[in-house]
């Protein structure tokens, strides 16, 4: 089942005289339960693509359907409503509210939907156990480590069981140990909950955890790689090779 379908997306910034095209007629389709990475050099438009897909930014042209809902035509209020139920976010800078405890942060998306408290508690316990942060529930964000913060952020994205989770460089601010720890948890959640994840990253290691990698260059899809049945290490090598071709710079590992 196709969960996200984007066709002919254009995005340009600036005015009529000084226009800069970032996305140039990009087509993309994501199936339910996929874990997709979007890679590309700086300035290739990957973050813009994520913003446009996740309704935070408006596309200049084209159509984006998530679970059959056309989001490019929606008004601000409808969009907020849509994000509330269908989308989850994980950001590079964790984006936790420092004045709230871990548990309060994670429960935020549920409080919008006015879910009964008992049910919310149960969901919290499940997701927090899975991510290994249940013991931290009464701590404030500045009392825990970066990796723990990012797992909190991930728990917040998963708790309301959204259709798609968008992750923007989730490992960008983490050391490699915490990063692979987080990615393991993410792909675990992806498999167990059949959750769809779209992740922007420039780190081939992070990308190798996903099932498909989309490479973007100059606002268009350059190529795609499918993991298939091969082991992660082999997939990582593939990604490295493609990246070398794409950027012309050898990634050292």
């Amino acid at each position, binding site marked *: 089942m196709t969960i996200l379908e984007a066709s002919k997306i254009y995005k340009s910034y600036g005015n009529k005289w000084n226009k800069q095209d970032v996305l140039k007629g990009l087509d993309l389709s994501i199936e339910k339960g996929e874990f997709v990475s979007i890679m590309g050099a700086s300035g290739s438009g990957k973050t813009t693509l994520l913003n446009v897909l*996740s309704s*935070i930014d408006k596309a200049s042209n084209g159509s984006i359907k998530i679970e059959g809902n056309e989001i490019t035509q929606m008004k*601000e*209020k409808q969009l*907020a*409503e*849509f*994000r*509330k*139920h269908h*989308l989850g*976010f994980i*950001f590079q800078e964790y*984006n*936790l*509210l*420092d*004045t*709230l*405890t871990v*548990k*309060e942060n*994670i*429960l*935020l*998306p*549920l*409080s*919008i939907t006015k879910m009964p*408290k008992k049910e*919310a*508690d149960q969901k*919290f316990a499940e997701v927090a156990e899975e991510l290994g942060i249940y013991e931290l*529930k*009464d*701590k*404030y*964000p*500045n*009392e825990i480590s970066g990796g723990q913060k990012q797992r909190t952020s991930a728990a*917040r994205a998963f708790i309301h069981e959204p259709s798609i989770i968008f992750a923007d460089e989730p490992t960008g601010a983490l050391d490699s140990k915490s990063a692979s720890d987080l990615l393991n948890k993410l792909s675990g959640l992806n498999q167990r909950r059949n959750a769809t994840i779209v992740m922007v990253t420039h780190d081939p290691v992070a990308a190798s955890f996903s099932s498909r990698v989309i490479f973007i260059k100059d606002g268009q899809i350059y190529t795609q790689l499918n993991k298939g049945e091969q082991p992660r290490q082999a997939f990582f090598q593939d990604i490295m090779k493609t990246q070398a071709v794409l950027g012309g710079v050898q990634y050292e590992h």
Partner: protein
Amino acid sequence: MNINQLIIRNLKKNLKNYFLYVFALVFSVALYFAFVTLQYDPAMTEAKGTIKGAAAVRTASILLVAIVSIFLLYANNIFIKRRSKEIGLFQLIGMTKGRIFRILSAENFILYFGSLVIGIFLGFSVSRLILMILFKITGVDAVASLHFSSEALVQTMIVFIVIYLFIILMNYLFIKRQSILALFRVISSTEGKVKKLSMFQNFIGILGLVLIATGYYVSSKLFGGDFTTMPALFAAMTGILGSVIIGTYLFYKGSVSFIFQLIRKRKDGYLSINEVMSLSSIMFRMKSNAMLLTIITTVSALAIGLLSLCYISYYSVDKTAQNNVAADFAFITEGDATTFETALDNAGIDFHEKRIEVIQVSANLKPILERNLEGMMVDPANMPMSVISDRSVKNVDAAPGETIFTGYSDLLQKFMTLKDSGTIEFKGLHQVIPLKYSGLEKEFVISWYYTAGGSPTAIVDDPVFQRLKQDLDPKVQQKSSLFIGINLKNEQQLEKANKIFSSLHFSSEHGNDSRLDLIKEQKKNMGLAMFIVGFLGLTFLITSGCILYFKQMGESEEEKPNYTILRKLGFTQGNLLRGIQGKQLFSFGIPLAVGLAHGYFAVQSGWFLFGAEVWTPMLVVMLLYAALYSIFGVLSVSYYKKVINEAL
């Protein structure tokens, strides 16, 4: 781009941020200039009345300078901190500190003196209006004219130039002390880190509430008779003041967090958007602003209390005058009364005359007093008291062997509370007459000459009165034993009759009074006091409102990333705005509510010293204060709205 362009650009860009600062500056200059203009206005001589009045005006202008300069320095401090990043950047690209200082000073200079000129102009244009208001409330009959005073201009200029120099000095010290690194970090270091509340803090929170409650409790007992000696009363007052102020500080430091923490605990992590925006944010911020909020609250309470008390006196002038002078005109000698009556007849003014014979007895009130009056300078067993016959008073009929008291001031009632009934004794020269005391009437039937400003008058049955009269104790008698009250039939002729009264020059004699004169005199005094306190209160209100607004501006910028997150999570702008409204209700509402509560208890503890009516004037003052104050809350919400809009 050279330095001048940089200054102009900075100015243009900052003007939007500085909008309220400029407004506050203009406003304080205008207020000050208007006030000083009044001070030098020749027409003021009459309103000021006495030397005391002039001194009050001068003191007020000094206080005004104090409020304004503290405010400007504080506001400047907030704004320079907000620009620390910019200053750091200038340093990073190689500008010397001296140069940065000159740029800032030049920028400040333009902003400051521009506002000064506008402020003086505004102050001048409203000074006539203010003068008219003053004349209106003091009841002075003079024409308010627009009068430019160069002395006022010079004084205003000097004061504000001195303040400017202080601001410059502060900026200089600020720039000098900072290194590039520190400049980048300045904001994060001033706001406290988010931490769990410790036991100690919970203790502080509870202690704050207890201290405030204790202060309130003692204040309600202050004049209830528990503190009868002067030193005890004084100690109690100091105690109240201390415990309430310290309590307020601890309240902000701990109690607010403590209470909010309890609410949050109950929610067990499941917070609604309103709670996220208000509770969790305020919990941590109020602590770091505890000192500022305490000052604002205390001075607010002071302003509310003083204004209420002034307004109570002003409002009760008529009633107090009625209690003191029991007729339009009161006389205690036959001769003066006849002279005045003849003059009224000649002028064709109709009147009623009321004659009451008043005798003094020594009364034993001990059996009906709620408490004994130790420490007071009266002996309850031998109290001098005015007695009149029930024949002199309409609508009151005392049975034989019974007495009714009438006309008892609220003030004395607090100190000497009477029981509902009991037996008292009136002592003549030879005999003692026991009487049953059977109640208290509100009305004052004879003037202050006999009642000494509030002690009750006893009404007895006529035969008893005659017996007392036969057996007078000459030691306690007053010079006169006759009260003559003259009431006009037509109140519109009062003004005319009053002129006749003045032209006959009775007033030097004790006990000959015109109620109208008393009212006018009181209105003039109380009106001036009210005007001055009102003026200071308004200045304080606006400056403190501005400071809270500036703080909120800063907070909103700091919390902007949070709004971004929340909007990404799917909260609409409307959701966030409702949360912000809740937050501002607390941010502005808590200091206001605490200030009002302090003011309320202050007024309740001592209002009867000032007048005869408490609720109407106090509520008017409080509502007005709250309304003006909430304007700043509304302004800050609209600022937040802008920030939220830009957040995604």
